[in-house]
């Protein structure tokens, strides 16, 4: 009964996306109509879908349909717990993105074809629904690649900007290479199971030879890692995410890279069964690297959106730290610990979707107000766009994992699962896990630093450029979009029980552990990771204390210190009368200390140009310009590319245009064949 209802709702949701896309395509080329149609279909679809996903998760139902059976491989559409959870994630973010787009896309009217934009946006969501609900390899690949193509088209929306065109291309190519690896895994699995269905993969996987298993594992790692932006497969991410329109950036960083995580969750925890310990170890290693390097590069950025993009890499790293630990525990048979780590990873996935979505929306609002992504030009925006600033602050607090927001809970959980590695019987894990714990700690602190920078230098103090002076607050719909996510950030931070409850089913049917009962007590108000008395957390209580102290302080101030007056004054600037923006600390300045300390990672280069009349020591103007080196690109990708190009150049001589040469090839082939035959006879 309920199941069939949910099924109908599901189909209705997809119908809305499809129709909404078509309508926005058909009605109105560039005008407001298509903008409204496109956005509203996203809103409605997401709203309905959100309900559906919640329904699935709470009623713990699932279903499967087959269609297009005339193809060599029939399509399977099946919704299980993991699918429902990711549907929940997708729709939660897309809902607010829809609201946001309503106002955001106004500036695109007339410039770009909004009808097509809406079409692509809706279809993108549809493809993601198909992706998380696909029950076999072919459907998966279809949805996967459609998603890639559509997001590629969306990234290069601003076709007149070379940057976004290049970004789109890079994104497409790298993702496709990633897809090829997933493809290999599927084919390898297919060659044993004789079918593309995931369930058949699962049932036959244990009989596969270790070599092929490892092949499958590695290929999945590369494939999904590319989509998720795991270092060293990440290079497209910091290029593509900033180049896209901000609502799309938010979509990509919030949702699309999570599809890689979905792949990991689906295959490493369900299909591939239990693997050797080094699987988890490898993932843990890459994850730690991604986390640290991601945030380090983020710290060096003063392009607001690129900064956020690098943070996506970092957070993917954090998520995968959880997953890697889970795999290690799984190998050693510590099921409930593994479940804990897995849960932590998924929790962080959800959180990252929410706050990164929020942050990108905020950044979008700022960028479209300031008409620049360069933080050097910003500052003082908190006075001009207070609401945006407030929401961005909440986002920053969440991503820096500060209580009482959601990021804190998931990172806390991940720390718990790392610390509980003391239960590991033996093996590398016992050293590797603490080390990645240290990495994670470093990451957390750097993230905080980075968001002090991001928020402080964007919103506080004085504006550093005239166009920032004229910045206007975002329209209501955009505020609403951000507001929802900000709210969610807080809620997921205070009521972890709810999220854990949602995830209960997922963990249950992958690991057979009732995680909700395992790690929560007093009705979800308190988290007690697996072992009683190891540690416990009750964010609600913490918040209560915090708030009551705050309240007390306010009361004290109101009652006893009412008479003390507060006067506004000029900032003390070593005696200079008026403080000018030139004297402010800049993003570059803020990150300088880090650049110095980690110089062997950044390999910073800078030059200082002196514009002065003769004699040279009379200086009118100093120009500072610096850049850092991205190691992976420098040492991995550039050489590879040039290598292939070289081969291409070399091979050109074959097609030299001389007919004699061509005939000679023919002749030689023939002669060679004849000789071969005479020998073989």
């Amino acid at each position, binding site marked *: 009964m309920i199941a069939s209802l949910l099924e109908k709702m599901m189909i209705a949701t997809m119908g809305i996306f499809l129709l909404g896309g078509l309508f926005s395509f058909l009605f109105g080329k560039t005008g407001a109509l298509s903008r409204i149609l496109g956005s509203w279909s996203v809103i409605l679809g997401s709203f309905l879908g959100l309900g559906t996903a919640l329904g699935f998760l709470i009623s713990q139902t699932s279903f499967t349909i087959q269609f297009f059976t005339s193809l060599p491989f029939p399509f399977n559409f099946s919704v299980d717990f993991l699918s429902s959870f990711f549907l929940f994630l997708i729709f939660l973010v897309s809902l607010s993105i829809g609201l946001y787009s309503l106002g955001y896309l106004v500036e695109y009217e007339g410039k770009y074809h909004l009808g097509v934009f809406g079409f692509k946006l809706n279809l993108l969501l549809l493809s993601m629904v198909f992706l998380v609900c696909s029950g076999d390899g072919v459907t998966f690949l279809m949805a996967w690649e459609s998603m890639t193509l559509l997001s590629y088209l969306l990234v290069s929306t601003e076709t007149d900007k070379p940057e976004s065109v290049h970004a789109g291309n890079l994104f497409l190519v790298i993702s496709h290479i990633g897809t090829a690896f997933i493809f290999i895994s599927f084919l390898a699995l297919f060659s044993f199971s004789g079918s593309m269905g995931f369930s058949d993969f699962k049932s036959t996987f244990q009989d596969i030879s270790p070599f092929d298993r490892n092949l499958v594992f590695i290929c999945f790692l590369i494939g999904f890692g590319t989509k998720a932006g795991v270092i060293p497969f990440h290079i497209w991410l910091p290029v593509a995410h900033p180049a896209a329109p901000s609502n799309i950036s938010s979509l990509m960083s919030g949702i699309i890279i999570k599809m890689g995580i979905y792949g990991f969750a689906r295959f490493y925890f369900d299909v591939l069964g239990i693997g050797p310990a080094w699987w988890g170890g490898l993932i843990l290693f890459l994850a730690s690297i991604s986390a640290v390097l991601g945030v380090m590069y983020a710290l060096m950025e003063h392009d607001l959106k690129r900064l956020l993009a690098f943070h996506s890499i970092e957070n993917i790293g954090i998520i995968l730290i959880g997953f890697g630990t889970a795999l290690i525990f799984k190998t050693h048979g510590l099921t409930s610990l593994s479940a804990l780590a897995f849960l932590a990873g998924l929790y962080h996935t959800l959180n990252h979707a929410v706050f990164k979505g929020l942050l990108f929306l905020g950044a979008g609002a700022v960028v479209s107000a300031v008409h620049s992504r360069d933080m050097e030009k910003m*500052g*003082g925006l908190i006075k001009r766009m207070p609401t945006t600033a407030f929401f961005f*602050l909440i986002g920053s*607090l969440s991503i*820096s*994992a*500060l*209580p009482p927001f959601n990021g804190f809970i998931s990172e*806390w959980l991940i*720390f*718990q699962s790392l*610390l509980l590695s*003391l239960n590991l019987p033996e093996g590398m894990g016992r050293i590797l896990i*603490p080390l990645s*714990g240290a990495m*994670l*700690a*470093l990451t957390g*602190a750097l993230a*905080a630093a980075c*968001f*002090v920078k991001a*928020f*402080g*230098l964007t*919103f*506080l*103090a*004085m504006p550093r450029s005239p166009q920032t002076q004229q910045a206007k607050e975002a329209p209501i719909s955009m505020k609403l979009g951000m507001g929802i996510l900000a709210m969610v950030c807080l809620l997921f931070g205070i009521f972890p029980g709810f999220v854990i409850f949602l995830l209960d089913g997922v963990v249950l049917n992958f690991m057979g552990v009732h995680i909700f009962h395992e790690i929560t007590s007093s009705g979800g108000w308190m988290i007690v990771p697996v072992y009683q*008395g*190891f*540690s416990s957390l*009750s964010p609600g209580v913490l918040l209560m*204390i*915090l708030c009551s*102290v*705050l309240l007390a*302080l*306010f009361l004290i101030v109101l009652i006893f210190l009412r008479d*003390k*007056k*507060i*006067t*506004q*004054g*000029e*900032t003390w*600037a070593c005696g200079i009368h008026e*403080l000018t*923006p030139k*004297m*402010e*600390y800049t993003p570059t*300045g*803020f*990150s300088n*200390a*880090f650049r*110095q*300390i980690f110089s062997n990672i950044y390999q910073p280069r800078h030059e200082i140009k002196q514009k002065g009349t003769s004699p040279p020591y009379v200086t009118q103007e100093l120009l500072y310009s610096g850049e850092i080196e991205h190691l992976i690109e420098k040492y991995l990708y550039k050489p590879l590319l040039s290598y292939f190009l070289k081969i291409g150049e070399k091979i050109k001589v074959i097609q030299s245009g001389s007919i004699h040469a061509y005939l000679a090839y023919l002749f030689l082939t023939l002669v060679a064949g004849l000789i071969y035959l005479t020998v073989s006879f």
Partner: protein
Amino acid sequence: MGIILILGKMVIVFGGAPLLSGIIKKLKARFQSRKGPSLFQPYFDLAKRFQKDMVISKHTSWIFRFTPFIVFSSMATASLLVPVFSTTLPLGFSGDIIALVYLFALARFFTALSGLEAGSAFGGMGSSREMVISALAEPAMMLAIFSVALSSGTISLGPAMETLANMGTDLVNPAHVLAFGALFIVAIAETGRIPVDNPDTHLELTMIHEGMLLEFSGRGLALMEWAAQAKQFLFIVLLGNLFIPIGLAPQYDFSEIGVPIVFFLAKIFFLALIISVVESSLAKLRFFRVPELLGASFILSLLALLTFYIVKG
């Protein structure tokens, strides 16, 4: 009952914190063969600042006004997670050492933001460097926590200290000592003391914590400083009770509260002594040398971890 305990705890922490810094000042003065200010000077300062009006930079926003409160209250919250006399905490369940670390981080975050608020270079540099140091301290601290977790089997502070206390002489093992060293360095860095930062300086170009507080005045400044002292107090207590976990009362029992208090004061004094010795015998490090110090602490905690496994086999 619970409420009283909670309030009592806060009173102890925030009441004791200025005294502690007073003690350290006094000891330092003695080492420098000065008479030095009275032990209670910090209280007078606080009182004076609460009396004064506030002057706030016109570039600041609500965050600047809000910061002292959030910093103070996060310290207050943190104080409830740290056992002082007794290993049973009324609200101990609500968080563990990780939560503690992140409450400090919350305070730091806002402090750094308010450092940037006024737009002066001092504040900017202060917050930048504060974040750097915390970032470098964090990994060492985490590994130290790991080794604590390993030796005690838990990371909620109450139980941890209890188990450690019950270990008796087993506690005297290399892992424990190394971890102590590591965490001590971290504490110095976190509380902004020499050789990392100089708490008694103003308007020195290299100041870090003071740099961020530069624009505060009146009650704002008072709250910030008070919170800073509380943080220092908490760290000292943490060190004392984790690594010298003797004389901690298993649960609150006012009849025999005496012993714990005595032990407690002894520990505090001892650590204060160490700090003042360090402060008066070392010069402040160049900022870009600080990483080496914290690196050393990281290595110490890593060794602690390894030795633990080696000893445990």
